């Protein structure tokens, strides 16, 4: 009995319940929703936003906020593709390692400012995003690398699928789930992961208990940057082009998804499973407007309302934490 009531009180349960209701409603409005093609497409749309959400989740658990990951993702993606074209290199593993490293470096720069100068993460990441995007567009280039100039190895990798019945499921989903599993292990089964929670709950207490806060800050923002860089290149290989102006406005969607998944912006609270559900909820709503016969121009309004309602619910949940 206590196990059941404990399960009911978890925010993931609430998100899951709402998710099922939303899916049933959409299915009733348009039964085409339940076709395997549509569902597999929906899952595919989760991958890039989902990996970015895992990066934001870590930052949010540590009590910070990251507005720079879209800039890091686009920098890692564009630089890697340009480098591959310049070298004529055809491969998959090395480019992804490169993109991840670019993201990692950017993330460590964030950590440096945040830790050394005790600056507010939001301001730091706002600034670093502007710096990275400005440098990329100003010095590297503004032209889109189209499918004819994209490295074929990346395209082949990004479009690899597995046949289930008569539909094709993108293999990228398993990469997403694999990263999610690793993040779950890291956050809940390692001391470094516990340190992130402790730091987010109360940085001073975490320090006094003996956690190395400096290492935690560098770990959190480095990991966030690395995941963003990886997600950036994955995005390019899935849509077959590299656009240096891509990911504008993603910070909103991804933060919304993470908050939808039950993470607290005050830190110390959040889970990988909840985040996966939040991402699925957001992509479901965004991608199902057309299926529900709603004009696409309403997308911003609907997503905004979802963010406000979800944050209102979490604010209500956390109401005792405030004055």
């Amino acid at each position: 009995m206590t196990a059941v009531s404990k399960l009911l009180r978890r925010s993931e349960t609430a998100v899951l319940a709402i998710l099922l209701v939303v899916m049933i409603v959409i299915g009733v409005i348009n039964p085409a929703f339940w076709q395997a093609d549509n569902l597999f497409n929906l899952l595919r749309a989760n991958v890039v936003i989902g990996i970015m959400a895992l990066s934001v989740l870590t930052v949010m658990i540590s009590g910070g906020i990251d507005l720079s990951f879209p800039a890091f993702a686009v920098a890692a993606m564009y630089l890697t593709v340009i480098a591959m074209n310049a070298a004529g290199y055809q491969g998959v593993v090395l480019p992804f390692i490169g993109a991840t490293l670019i993201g990692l470096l950017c993330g460590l720069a964030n950590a440096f400012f945040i830790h050394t100068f005790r600056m507010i993460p939001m301001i730091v990441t706002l600034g670093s995003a502007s710096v990275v995007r400005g440098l990329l567009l100003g010095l590297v280039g503004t032209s889109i690398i189209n499918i004819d100039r994209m490295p074929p190895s990346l395209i082949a990798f990004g479009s690899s699928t597995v046949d289930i019945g008569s539909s094709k499921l993108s293999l990228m989903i398993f990469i997403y789930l694999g990263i999610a599993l690793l993040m779950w292990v890291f956050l809940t089964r390692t001391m470094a992961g516990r340190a992130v929670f402790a730091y987010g709950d109360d940085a001073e207490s975490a320090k006094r208990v003996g956690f190395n806060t400096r290492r935690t800050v560098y770990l959190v923002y480095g990991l966030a940057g690395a995941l963003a860089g990886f997600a950036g290149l994955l995005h390019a290989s899935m849509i077959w082009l590299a656009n240096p102006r891509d990911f504008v406005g993603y910070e909103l969607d991804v933060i919304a998804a993470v908050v939808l998944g039950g993470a607290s912006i005050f830190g110390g609270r959040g889970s990988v499973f909840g985040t996966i559900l939040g991402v699925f909820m957001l992509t479901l709503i965004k991608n199902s407007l057309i299926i529900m016969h709603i004009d696409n121009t309403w997308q911003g309004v609907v997503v905004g309302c979802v963010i406000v309602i979800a944050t209102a619910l979490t604010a209500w949940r956390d109401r005792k934490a405030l004055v």
Partner: protein
Amino acid sequence: MNKLADLRRFVNRDNNIIQLLIITAVIFLVMSALEPNKFLRYYNFESISFIFPELGIVAIAMTLAMLTGGIDLSVIGIANLAGILAGVFFTRLYPAAPDAGMAAELMRVAAGVVLALGVGLIAGALNGLLIAKVKITPILATLGTGQIFTGFCMVLTGGPAIVGFPAWWGFIGNGKILGIAVPLILFLVVAVLIAVMLTKTPFGLNLFLIGTNPRAAVFAGLRTDRMVLYSYMLSGTLAALAGVVLSGRTNAAKSDYGTSYLLQAVLISVLGGTNPAGGKGTVLGVSIAVIALMLLASGFQMMRFSNHLIDFIWGGFLLLVMVINVLRNRGR
């Protein structure tokens, strides 16, 4: 003895203003030295006086939200929504009568201004209610409402810009009174009003107290909820005013105008000495900061820097100023 203490307090308090004035002077001198023929022309300063007020007003709106430890990420959404609704009002709801006299046209524009500012007030009230009553963190609440406002802009326009504003509307953004740009006059009026409100009225004092220590403010018996609500309503109205000036200057309104203003407004606010954690900030500081950055941007544009590199410089400047502030405070 007392006088000395007063003087010392003044210097301490206005240390930041002095630092800003020095930064501005350095930028001015460097730009004048690098591009003396273009930078020092009257035309350059005149065009700056038309362009900077909209950004300055948005930055003051941002400062108001930051004073209580919040932030308003929806200012650009509100500004665009106000401009677009005014555009819809002028083109679809109340088009110009062909034989309308000047008085009728003025009335129409005045109605448009009231509508636009009213939209800002309501939008700000929505922000304020979500933050003060529902207790959503300001950054998330305004992130969401900003998305909603921009979303409504998309719904109303379907994407393309709305054009066809009346001539007098354009006067708000492009006109001159006694040789002075109308936007500049508007900015000065707003700056003086807000500065007086913050320093000379109980409401202003309340905002500073809430920002310094929200919990103590509650125990001191301040009506924090109501004060926060009012501050976001005011910031929404100012954002709408910026939208009026912007749509007047460009004679158009679009859902994605001025998106780069959001970062710049935060930057100017912080650069002007506003503490993002609340409790500190002056309109004078913000005003000097916006002028400093406008001089910087116009100078770089003359040197044919790409707009993207100017983005890089804004971001780098933000980090640099924050680092300087931290190091200076540490030295004390």
